[in-house]
């Protein structure tokens, strides 16, 4: 892993809404194959930060570079073309299509066949679609209508869709929100495994500290729009500022998975 060109470089990212700073001068970077967690209490600016990385929101100041290329202010679809896959906090899938077709649409887009009026989408790159579904353990559901999937399955489907453009970077906004605890761990384990295998960088936000500490290589902590800590899980856990923020929330204790925890 070369230090020369990080996968993602964020520099002095700033955004304010009506005089209130949502994000202030946030800088960090991410290398290939690394899993980076972005955490912080509610209203810390995680989502704003995230939206600026994937192009849904334009920063007031600062830069985002992907693979050395400036992506600040680019549209989400342009950033996707550079090799960024993403999943949403609330799943966004194509409800009137089957599970496989959801993946196929992403493959069609990746193959630049969006304006192909003649071919057959249900037959488009079926093999690859099934392979991606297998990867996330959804192959058995390939022909199911997406609209009747359970929520955990939708999350896994989103992961398969996010992997369709052979991304170098995955942006996952609360990937396990709304899932049962067991499913959360499974999904993140799966993600981590795929990331390591394909050497994909992963940036995710998460409320569930168990998930964070188990899977993140590195953690950055936001509070009131500013980056207050950065480091390995152990370092962050030991950080007094972080402890102060999370004090009383009981989220930083080490240990197994707390049954019944909610996001």
């Amino acid at each position, binding site marked *: 892993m070369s230090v020369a060109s990080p996968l993602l470089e964020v520099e002095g990212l700033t955004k304010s809404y009506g005089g209130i700073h949502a994000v202030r001068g946030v800088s960090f970077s991410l290398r290939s194959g690394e899993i980076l967690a972005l955490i912080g209490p509610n209203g810390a600016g995680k989502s704003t930060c995230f939206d600026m990385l994937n192009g849904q929101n334009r920063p007031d100041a600062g830069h985002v570079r992907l693979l050395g290329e400036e992506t600040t202010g680019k549209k989400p679809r342009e950033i996707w073309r550079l090799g960024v896959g993403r999943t949403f906090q609330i799943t966004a899938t194509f409800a009137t*299509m089957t599970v496989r*077709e959801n993946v196929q649409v992403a493959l069609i887009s990746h193959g630049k066949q969006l304006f192909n009026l003649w071919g057959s989408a249900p037959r488009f790159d079926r093999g690859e679609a099934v392979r991606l579904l297998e990867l996330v353990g959804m192959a058995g559901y390939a022909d199911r209508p*997406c609209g009747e999937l359970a929520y955990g399955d939708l999350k896994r489907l989103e992961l398969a869709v996010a992997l369709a453009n052979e991304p170098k970077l995955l942006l996952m906004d609360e990937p396990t929100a709304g899932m049962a605890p067991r499913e959360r761990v499974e999904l993140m384990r799966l993600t981590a495994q795929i990331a390591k295998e394909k050497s994909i960088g992963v940036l995710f936000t998460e409320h569930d500290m168990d998930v964070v500490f188990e899977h993140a290589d590195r953690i950055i902590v936001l509070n009131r729009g500013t980056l207050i800590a950065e480091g390995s899980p152990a370092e962050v856990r030991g950080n007094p500022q972080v402890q102060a923020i999370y004090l009383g929330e009981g989220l930083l204790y080490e240990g197994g998975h707390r049954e019944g925890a909610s996001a």
Partner: protein
Amino acid sequence: MAFYVVQFLTGLASAASLFLVASGLSIIFGVTRIVNFAHGAFYMIGAYIAFTLTERFSGAFGFWGGVVLAALAVALIGVLVEMVLLRRIYHAPELFQLLGTFGLTLMVEDLVVLIWGPDDLVGRRAPGFKGAVDFFGQNIPSYDLFLIVLGPVVLGILWLLFQRTRWGVLVRAATQDRDMVAALGVNQKWLFTSVFAVGVFLAALGGALQIPRDAVHHAMDLRIIVEVFVVVVIGGLGSIVGAFVAAVLVSELNAFGILIFPKISIILVFLVMAVVLIVRPWGLFGKPEAAARKTPGLSVNPWRPLTSNERLAALAALVVAAMLPLVAGNYALTVGSEIAIFVIFAVSLHFLMSVGGLASFGHAAYFGLGAYGVAFLAKMAGLPMIVCLLLGPLLGCMGAAVFGFFAVQLSGVYFAMLTLAFAQIVWSIAFQWVSVTGGDNGILGVWPEKWAASPSHFYWLALGVAALVTIALRVMVFSPFGYALRATRDSVLRSEAVGIDAKRIQWTAFVIAGTTAGIGGALFAYLKGSVFPDNLGISLSVDALVMVLLGGVETVSGGVIGAIVYKALNIWLVSQTDLSKLVLGGFIVLIVVVFPKGIVGMLEILAQRRRKSSPPGSSLLAKPIESAE
């Protein structure tokens, strides 16, 4: 100077009556999301009942009492309609309610003639407001002054109602987020019913108050409904203040516009709406719609290409249709050609609506442009028929390219209304530009050449083109492009996140649909041998919508069936009875209640049930938790 003041006041008086009706429509849409096409019909019934009551009871009490009583009576009818008809279809695909209320409107237009007779009725003047007030030598009718005061008073009452009562708070909450109110445990049923009643009351009051100014007749509804829709959209859907401002804006622009361009009235409101929507996509006082709601209802059943058996069946149906000339006479063949042409028209809109989720209210524009394209080429350039048929639709294509570009920047009802505005602009050009288009007298003598002149040949031509178009669009539905289009409909967020440029995809779809409609129009010009502005008119656009909705917007082939059923029924009824609107309207209402997913949608559900009854239930999967945080 006095003149301009008086002209301004006159404009305000016109605005007041427009506002009354528009505010009702706006409230109803805001809360129930119903595009209430019958709003004009309620306005008209209000006027008719008020006429009867004010003729019957004399004096000031009789008049004003009659007006209020009429509005109340119509509100009661509104409640009945809401409970009997609309309640059954709130969960049907959006716009399906449009179909139901359209059916009602058709019925009412015939019913008022049956009840009140065919003559235009002129009612009493308002007691105490018969004369005029002198303003520096200019006369202002005192009834105008009354209306000028009434507008803001009604606005004020509505404002108080919404700000100061629990009911109003609920209405406002529902306007912003319908689902949330449902979650709060509010009895949604009665909220909707009461809102509908208030909206209808305002419409009927608006109608009743026209008695001293207007004649009461059976086409009043159409005169007002489109204009009112436009006002509501300019103001911003669901915004009462917006409706008021828009009504004033439109009326004043008209009052002063005619001083400079006396012919402006015919198109003014649509020009204003087009400009407003391009600059402010949600109207003057509207807010961006919550994005989450899907345009067509979410059918859980994904579409699939036809199986080989189904393909054989479709082919067999086509072969049977192609054999019609062996048994049928010239008239039946010409009707067959017309139906085939409307199949083309309907499937083109269906492609846009069901695959793209883009409901165009002005699709006739491209149909008509195709027809005019043919007429120009044939009459002015004298080109052969086959060339005209190939090139004529290009006019539809160009129109769709220009207007589609602006239209796809919007979504939902705003998209629909912008397409309507464009269609009306095209219509008024065809209507006004007499030297080129012949105005409303149209272009005559566009008859087919010899090879296609006989009814059977033309029928085969139309049938063949219809089959090709239907197949081509079906192939497109299942093509990568079709999926990309459907992706933009299902989830804007996700499609953008997988690299799909939604606007470009939708624009392309719009152009495809427009060109296809143009093909239908080109054939239509030859079928009828003439082209008239009403080939681009609102009623044809509405016909297309009805055909699509009747067939089923969530289906792939609904457009075909919808067109055949609607057009055949329409032609047959018009031929059989002068009350065709009453029967057709009744039929539509019946379909809406019995088959809320359209005819084809219903057939699919039936087929599915049959399939499901053999293998035991596989639908025990957990429900999606869409609202998880």
